[in-house]
């Protein structure tokens, strides 16, 4: 018996990988996957690191795998998109040491810019196998098995946990870690690992991509056979001719729903792709209709429809193509609303609770009190207003500047898109100053490419780099500008002014706690032709405070209510949560309980009413 621990799903995944003898772990931080990488730290012989971006992380792991070492790239769904190009090659070559991709999806976009289902990308597009866990415990077991199966099939295996698995907690048994890990070695196999449009004499001159494609296709029956007997798929007996299929969290929520249903219904739990075809056919033998609960696209639903068509099975298949809501994360409520519509004889007895007839204010996101981004965003807001500028935004803490009250950035898409999009706006000839705002972690992720493009093509964009020296939003992971590695070891940090110099871009470094300096630099940049870069440089306030380091000299800030005219500029153009508007008196107030005394608002006020 191992030691029992109450841990997060992400820790369970990390533990599974460590017990399986993973040797190289690389990722890029992103909710809900971030903690998986952190949790792999501290085991001798296991290399754990943050990479610039997910593609780099994946390629590191692929290199390790070709040396017969087990490796695990970790990312959220957006990262898997970034990896797509490599994935569409490594699926053809296969791997050597077990390689398990963790692609965490965030149904409902709880902490993401979009919601998507990476099962489609990894399974439908790249034809690679996936495990879809229903709990932290199952996620751990699946990761361990995925390493073995990855080696046995020579294929990348994928674990696709959703937020409710990553961030769930449960009691887990920890087993011993392997005493020794196999040594790395490399033998060339150019026919396999050189992906190129070369004719293959062995195959009568057929091009290599087709031969490798055939190799991948020929793996599918083996995968099918493995999943047919997988312990992660099972059927539960029930009454009636309407059956239900729960994939991953869909199963968990259905089990939770059972306590409210008038009878036990036939239930098939699925956790693998490819699907266990025979088990599914067996399950529906006496059924007329099945309803599938899956996260999030109707993927399994479509695959089952295809199986039924091929096998001439006349069972109605319903699911997230519309019978179950096609957007958002699955909830218990969705299941309870769906079951009686599919099986009208079933009564749902969920406890009724009174409605709460009171307005509940929503909490929108904003920067932390004391955050240095608020300074540069305020200076930019004023510059943009004066010169009728447009701001393309990016991913990261600064994105809260796009919401009320500031409403500064006009676009936010995905990692690194700010500078190219701003470039396109400039090239379109809008005849207004165009800005791109990007944080430093995002800049190193791939934003740097947009800057090089703007430099070499001499595009008139003003780039503001919010350099807070850390990936703050996901919990302070180091990046190439931090100067330390994940393990805390000192390393070089990229010097952006030198980089700008080599690109021939005018670069100005400003202190975001000095609004005058920020405004001056922004105005100068606007008046210049060609690309310019402003580096707003100051370590993250929250992290610095935690380390006992000061990024400003705290002072007591108060309102001179005699001078305050209630113009609201401190709220609308700055939006610090410590400042509030006292409606009856038409004056603002500072909450001393939460003000940290950065003093930025003193310069924001035009009337000198903040002292």
């Amino acid at each position: 018996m191992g030691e029992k621990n109450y841990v997060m799903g992400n820790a369970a995944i990390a533990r599974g990988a460590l017990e399986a003898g993973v040797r190289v772990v690389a990722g890029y931080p992103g909710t809900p996957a971030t903690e998986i990488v952190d949790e792999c730290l501290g085991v001798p012989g296991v290399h754990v690191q943050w990479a610039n971006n997910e593609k780099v992380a994946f390629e590191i792991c692929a290199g390790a795998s070709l040396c017969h070492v087990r490796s695990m790239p970790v990312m959220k769904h957006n990262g898997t998109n970034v990896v797509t190009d490599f994935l569409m090659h490594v699926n053809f070559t296969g791997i050597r040491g077990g390689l398990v991709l963790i692609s965490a999806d965030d149904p409902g976009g709880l902490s993401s810019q979009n919601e998507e289902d990476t099962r489609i990308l990894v399974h439908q597009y790249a034809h690679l196998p996936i495990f879809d866990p229903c709990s932290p415990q199952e996620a751990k077991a699946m990761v361990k098995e995925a390493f073995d199966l990855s080696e046995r099939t020579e294929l990348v295996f994928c674990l696709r946990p959703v937020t409710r698995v990553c961030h769930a907690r449960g009691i887990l048994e920890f087993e011993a870690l392997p005493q020794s890990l196999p040594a790395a070695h490399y033998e060339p196999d150019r026919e396999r690992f050189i992906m190129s449009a070369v004719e293959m004499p062995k195959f009568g001159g057929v091009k290599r991509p087709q031969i490798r494609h055939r190799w991948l296709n020929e793996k599918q029956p083996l995968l099918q056979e493995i999943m047919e007997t997988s312990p992660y798929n099972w059927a539960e007996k029930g009454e009636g001719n309407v059956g239900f299929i729960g994939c991953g969290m869909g199963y968990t929520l259905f089990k939770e729903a059972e306590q409210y249903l008038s009878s036990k219904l036939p239930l098939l739990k699925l956790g693998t792709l490819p699907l266990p075809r025979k088990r599914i056919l067996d399950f529906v033998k006496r059924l007329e209709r099945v309803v599938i609960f899956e996260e999030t696209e109707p993927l399994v639903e479509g695959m089952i429809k295809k199986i039924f068509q091929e096998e001439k099975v006349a069972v109605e298949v319903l699911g997230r193509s519309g019978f179950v809501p096609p957007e958002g994360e699955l909830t218990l409520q969705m299941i309870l609303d769906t079951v009686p519509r599919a099986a009208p004889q079933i009564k749902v007895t969920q406890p009724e609770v009174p409605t709460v007839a009171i307005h509940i204010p929503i909490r929108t996101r904003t920067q932390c009190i004391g955050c240095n981004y608020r300074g540069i965003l305020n200076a930019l807001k004023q510059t943009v207003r004066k010169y009728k500028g447009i701001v393309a935004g990016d991913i990261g803490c600064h994105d809260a500047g796009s919401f009320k009250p500031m409403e500064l950035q006009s676009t936010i898409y995905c990692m690194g898109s700010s500078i190219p999009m701003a470039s396109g706006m400039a090239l379109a000839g809008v005849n207004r100053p165009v800005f791109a705002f990007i944080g430093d972690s995002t800049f190193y992720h791939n934003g740097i490419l947009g800057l090089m493009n703007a430099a070499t093509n001499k595009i008139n964009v003003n780039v503001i780099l919010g350099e807070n020296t850390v990936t703050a939003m996901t919990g302070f992971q180091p990046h190439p500008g931090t100067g330390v590695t994940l393990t805390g070891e000192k390393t070089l940090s990229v010097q952006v002014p030198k980089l700008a110099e080599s690109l021939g871009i005018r670069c100005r470094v400003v202190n975001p706690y000095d609004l005058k300096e920020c405004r001056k630099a922004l105005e100068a940049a606007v008046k210049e032709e060609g690309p310019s870069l402003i580096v707003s440089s100051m370590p993250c306030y929250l992290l610095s405070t935690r380390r006992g380091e000061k990024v400003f000299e705290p002072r007591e800030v108060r309102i001179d209510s005699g001078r305050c005219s209630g113009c609201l500029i401190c709220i609308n153009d700055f939006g610090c949560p410590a400042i509030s508007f006292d409606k009856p008196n038409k004056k603002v107030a500072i909450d001393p309980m939460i003000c940290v005394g950065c003093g930025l608002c003193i310069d924001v006020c035009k009337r000198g009413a903040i002292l």
Partner: protein
Amino acid sequence: MKMDVVIAGVGGQGNIFASLVISQYAMNKNLNVSGAETIGAAQRGGSVVSHIRMADGPIYSPLISRGQADLLVGMEYIEMLRHLRLLNPRGTYLLNAMKIQTVLSNMGMDEYPSPEEILRAVRNYCPRGYVIEASALAKKLGNIQMTNVVMLGALVKVLPFFDYDEIKWLTNANSPSRFKEANVQGFEKGYKLIPA
């Protein structure tokens, strides 16, 4: 037997510490434990809710569903309100009398209800509960971040499921060494906030 607890608050109030103490307590009692945290993307200031599910039988969903919570701990007025319908109307609530404005209410673009209105709505929903000045007490003790341990102390008195000595021990054991003494003191004072 089952005990479902929801802790609702704002990022930075220490929900997660409190939920870990409760979970460890249940584990030590050999109960099955499951739970989840929902945390927004921002480091501070967003809604944060922890679900802790404890039972002597199997637990499926890590999330507590409508009307199932036996105890709702509100670290802040509207955060408690936001999750009120998870509470069984015959259950118990424990509310910290603390108001944290939202971005929009700060701007005068949204109306933060008055504490009286909120309490009326809460009492209409569930008659059994306690409202305590945990943050005010934590601040008096020297650090508003101790709100969570004050709330833990109060919680022990509210429900006999929790054992005073064991929760106190776990509060101490989970605190970083420089906060141990203060946290235990906060816990003890929190216990005394609830009338016998």
